[in-house]
């Protein structure tokens, strides 16, 4: 079997390797941004919404609104950590595969990159569903109001 760093000459080998390096940096910066966001939220949380504001009718509704912001921060942290795991794994395994001439590691790295895009694909799909629901709700509201 040919050594990996010989078979993967430029342009493909270089292209995969530089993509992996940039992806690793992007993963770290993205995780740092999310962590600082969570710390900023925990140290200075937004003023709680009281009943009467935002057209809320009772305290239960305002509690739901207040807990929703904490939930969204928690969910974004989980998504960010998952995305970091897959992207950093892609970066690490790709660099390792070129270093040790190990093709199986490169296959794992590429599947990790696919996993990273799978996460964003699913999220985008969920966002699209919410957009569609908002669109339908808007049409129904304009029809019945």
């Amino acid at each position: 079997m040919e050594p990996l760093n010989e078979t993967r000459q430029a342009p493909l080998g270089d292209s995969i390797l530089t993509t992996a390096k940039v992806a690793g940096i992007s993963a770290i910066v993205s995780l740092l941004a999310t962590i600082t966001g969570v710390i900023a939220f925990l140290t200075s949380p937004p003023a709680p919404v009281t009943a009467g504001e935002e057209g809320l009718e009772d305290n239960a509704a305002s509690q739901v609104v207040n807990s929703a912001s904490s939930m969204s921060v928690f969910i974004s942290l989980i998504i960010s950590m998952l995305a970091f795991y897959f992207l950093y794994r892609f970066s690490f395994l790709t660099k390792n595969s070129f270093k040790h001439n190990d093709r199986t590691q490169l296959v794992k790295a590429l599947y990790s990159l696919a996993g990273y895009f799978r996460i964003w694909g699913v999220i985008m799909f969920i966002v699209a569903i919410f957009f569609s629901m908002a669109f339908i709700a808007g049409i129904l509201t304009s029809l019945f109001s």
Partner: protein
Amino acid sequence: MEQQEQSDNILEQEPLEEESSAVLQISRWVKLITSVGFAIGTFIVVVMLTSGAQILRQLAAALPIKTDGIYGALVTGFFMLFFITALILYYLYKAAHLLTQGVKERNSVVLAQGFHFLKNFFIATAILSLVQLLINLTNLLS
């Protein structure tokens, strides 16, 4: 030169079939992201064309900062965000297209171009994350 071309054409080698299936999986998910992204973008364009001014005025009124020109800043911010998102989606679209084409044609040059567009996508996301990090740090320190 010929030897390099031969060695570059890695997908013709038997042990790398798994790699091509992994690349195809990447391109499939990237294609889904771009399709959904362009659909959401179209929806946003339609909404902003019909009632964009009203939405941005309401948003400007709801912001805690009350200064002159906040509406203009919001419009500029929206356009900047819109074009950056469009650029990111373009990179992803090109990457998905070239990766699929590269695997089907077993052409390493096309595959390399696909990965080049993925690299551009990661550069764009890294810059956006850096901006977000700076904003968060400013909020933390203020």
